[in-house]
């Protein structure tokens, strides 16, 4: 049912800004509208555009915060999350652990 829920009601994960909104709910306990407004402010776009995959894919590529399609040189996994942490101004647990492991 995951794909049914996602297409009927979900933000769309890394197709759009779904993972970013989830991070604000998880790190700050924000309700959905507050989370969307916060991210839109950080990205300099409207709340309406957050769920638009055409706009968000361009932004994700420009910002290096991870994108859907494989592309040489595109940041993956932890590389994208380091930038997401900076963009959103939050602490991401796995990023902190990664930095500790490499002595940063």
């Amino acid at each position, binding site marked *: 049912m*995951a794909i*049914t829920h996602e297409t*009927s009601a979900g933000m769309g*994960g890394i*197709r759009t800004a779904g993972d970013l909104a989830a991070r604000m709910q*998880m790190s700050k306990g924000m309700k959905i509208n507050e989370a969307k407004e916060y991210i839109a402010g950080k990205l300099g776009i409207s709340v*309406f555009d957050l769920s638009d995959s055409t706009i968000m894919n361009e932004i994700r590529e420009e910002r290096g915060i991870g994108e859907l399609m494989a592309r040489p040189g595109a940041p993956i*996994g932890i590389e994208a999350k380091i930038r*997401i942490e900076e963009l959103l101004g939050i602490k991401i647990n796995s990023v902190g652990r990664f930095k500790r492991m490499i002595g940063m």
Partner: protein
Amino acid sequence: MGKIFSRYGDGYAAWLTEDEIRRDIEEGTRDAADRGKIPELTAEDKERLLEICIMPGKNVCVERGKEVIVTFDAGTLKIPIRNGVPMDRTTAILTHEKILCSDTMELAHVDYSYKQIKSIISEEKIAMEHAQLNTIIPLFYGAMPNLGLYTKPDGPVGNWSELLPAGKIAEAREAQEEAIEHAIKDMVFVASNMYEAGADGINFDTVGASGDADVLATLKAVAILKEKYPEMAIETGFAGEFVLGMHGQLAYDGTRLAGLYPHQQVKVAEKAGATIFGAAVNTNSSMSFPWNIARVCTFIKACTEAASIPVHVDVGMGVGAIPLNNVPPTDAVTRADKAIIEIGKADGL
């Protein structure tokens, strides 16, 4: 008047007139309001719910801009275990991220209880550490409190499901109180280890499945974890719309747990330190989809109005008006999603 295609709570087709749908919505919201001592849906809500129920398209979706976040229970069990696709759990996570476009995912073990995870914690930590290197979406670790596992012969304490029918009320209560202490230790141990392995959050799934003692154990574990790791995200997904009083006298911070409905469950979860509340409203398989979704929206609207934290509504089979069926029809699933978000004002699913 023509008949409109709908469903029963078991997934089978129901052909109903508009008047019958309207009647079921009225009765569904009244049932929830009576049980939860909460307001019925407004006339405007009921009219909107009717529109959603009778929309002619097979599937429906939320209005543009009203999309929400989706979190999961039994996350990595769905593709490799339930669907039987031979796939490593970390590949399942990337499948959700890159193909199903899930907003979050949950790493989980097939023996989905904190007590069982304790003995394989090293292997679970390794899986989390690997997964976090390749994953962009937030990744929970999740399992169930499952207090029943602490009863004999699998566990150390008496079985209250046997003691209660034998009239041994005091012994049954004592056994549950003992089980709570064991469960807290296991939940804190596993959650701490998985957080230190890089988990973005911990999911306590089906909280209350063994009754009020199960809820109390989880709330106490959540409070300990939040003190230990203030930035840990914790989702508490409840098992049902009503906390069963298997003990009957347990309270958290002065609130008696037995009998709490979602709008009250969320308040104790908040008090303990939960970051996201998972609200469950049971599907009645004998009643129609309009009856079930009216009940769900009534409970959820009261819950989101009471909540200070995000509310993610459980929409798996048998809850959230989703038919009690292993292959829930998408016409019912998408209507449930739309109604829960647009009328219930949910922050996620």
